[in-house]
């Protein structure tokens, strides 16, 4: 809100990419490099995680799940922040691409949230002896997953896709205000009803041999996320263009 008085220079820059043609050209130029970077980072990260990094002295080979689980959880939160930021830009500056970006990022974020929950569940079974524990972290991730589902459902629930995206943008912002509240409430709720199994690392510091594959995977996941969002935005824009062309041909222009 404080940016409403931004200098004309910045505003111009923001709207420079509102032209879909210019955005498509930029995306086409960036995508091959970004895809290659994603492939290299994920390959290096996976080799580092599965082959090079040592098994944990307590968890054994199960620790390998962490190399997918932690970056997924990170991206789940990052994607929601990106959706909320894009929604704010869409509502405040009415930037036409911001709507499309939020719409493109939401299902990807939901997929990462699901991946974090599923891998966490797979890890929880051998470690905690349960597929699911009503732990504060798990519960807030589950709520985040529901928020994503609501956002996606609302965006797709209208005859006019633009109206759906606008409604979803408001919901994303309301949800973003609520995420800290949910987080704190769930933390509190859990501390009052403390159960036996709560995740605890005896040693909070991760050894360097485990840390670098994790970081590489984290950066690789981020590159993967950006690639997917760009591809989805491109597909959205091209679908609109195809629809317009078909309409023109039907009209006989």
């Amino acid at each position: 809100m404080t940016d409403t008085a931004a200098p004309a220079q910045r505003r111009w820059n923001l709207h420079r990419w509102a032209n879909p043609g210019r955005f498509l050209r930029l995306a086409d130029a960036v995508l091959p490099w970004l895809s290659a970077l994603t492939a290299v980072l994920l390959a290096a990260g996976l080799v580092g995680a599965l082959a090079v990094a040592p098994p944990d002295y307590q968890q054994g080979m199960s620790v390998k799940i962490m190399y997918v689980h932690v970056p997924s959880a990170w991206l789940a939160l990052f994607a929601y922040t990106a959706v909320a930021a894009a929604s704010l830009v869409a509502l405040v500056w009415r930037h036409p691409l911001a709507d499309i970006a939020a719409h493109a990022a939401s299902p990807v974020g939901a997929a990462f949230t699901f991946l974090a929950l599923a891998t966490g569940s797979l890890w929880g079974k051998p470690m905690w002896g349960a597929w699911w524990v009503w732990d504060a972290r798990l519960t807030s991730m589950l709520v985040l997953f529901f928020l994503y589902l609501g956002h996606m459902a609302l965006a797709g629930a209208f005859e006019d896709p633009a109206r759906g995206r606008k409604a979803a943008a408001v919901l994303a912002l309301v949800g973003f205000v609520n995420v800290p509240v949910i987080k704190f409430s769930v933390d509190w709720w859990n501390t009052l009803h403390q159960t036996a199994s709560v995740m605890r690392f005896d040693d909070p510091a991760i050894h360097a041999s485990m840390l670098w594959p994790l970081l590489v995977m984290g950066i690789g996941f981020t590159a993967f996320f950006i690639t997917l969002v760009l591809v989805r935005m491109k597909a959205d824009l091209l679908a609109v263009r195809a629809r317009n062309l078909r309409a023109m041909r039907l009209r006989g222009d």
Partner: protein
Amino acid sequence: MKEGGAVSAGMAATFAHVLGRDLRLALRQRGDAALSVLFFVLAASLFPFGVGANAELLARIAPGVVWVTALLAVLLSLDRLFERDHLDGSLELLARAPAPLGVIVAAKMAAHWLTTGLPVVVAAPIIAGMYALPPSGYPVLMMAMLLGTPCLSLIGGVGAALTLGARRGGVLMPLVVLPLYIPVLIFGVTAVDASLAGLPVRPHLMLLGAMLLGAAALAPWAAAAGVRQAVA
């Protein structure tokens, strides 16, 4: 100063007028409000059939059952908030009124709470009594519900405004609204649990009050944005 006073007096008059209109409408269709309370009592009385009539168990789950069923009763009544006005066109007129739409929406939310939330709060001791909630829990349960149920109307109003005119609006609303209801549910239940355990209840009630103030400040504007999209 004088001008500002006139503006806020005008807003108060708008608020009172819309509130009066919605309350009059609700009074003429008394069945709607009665149905919400009926649903609340009916849904709450299903749980003993599911979990058995063990008095100790029922007393332990009483706060949770009261809150969850109150939440569902409010949820089911949310489509009443804007849907009918949207269909008959009066929402469009309200949105074009020379008053801030947020004030009008806030008045409609207040009317919704008075006709749905308040009756549920009044009926809550009956359910709590049927569940043998210990007497020390009642004051806190009532306080928490008085603070929490307006939040349900406010947050739910945002969902109701955003889903106006959507396909499958009825199924969509729970998906949009329920995740946002979770903090109210958690603090509402922990307040009663804390009082039963002899722990201080002030922090829970203050957090509920904080959520109410935050929702009262923000939710009408978010809902107004949704209404504006629906009538545009």
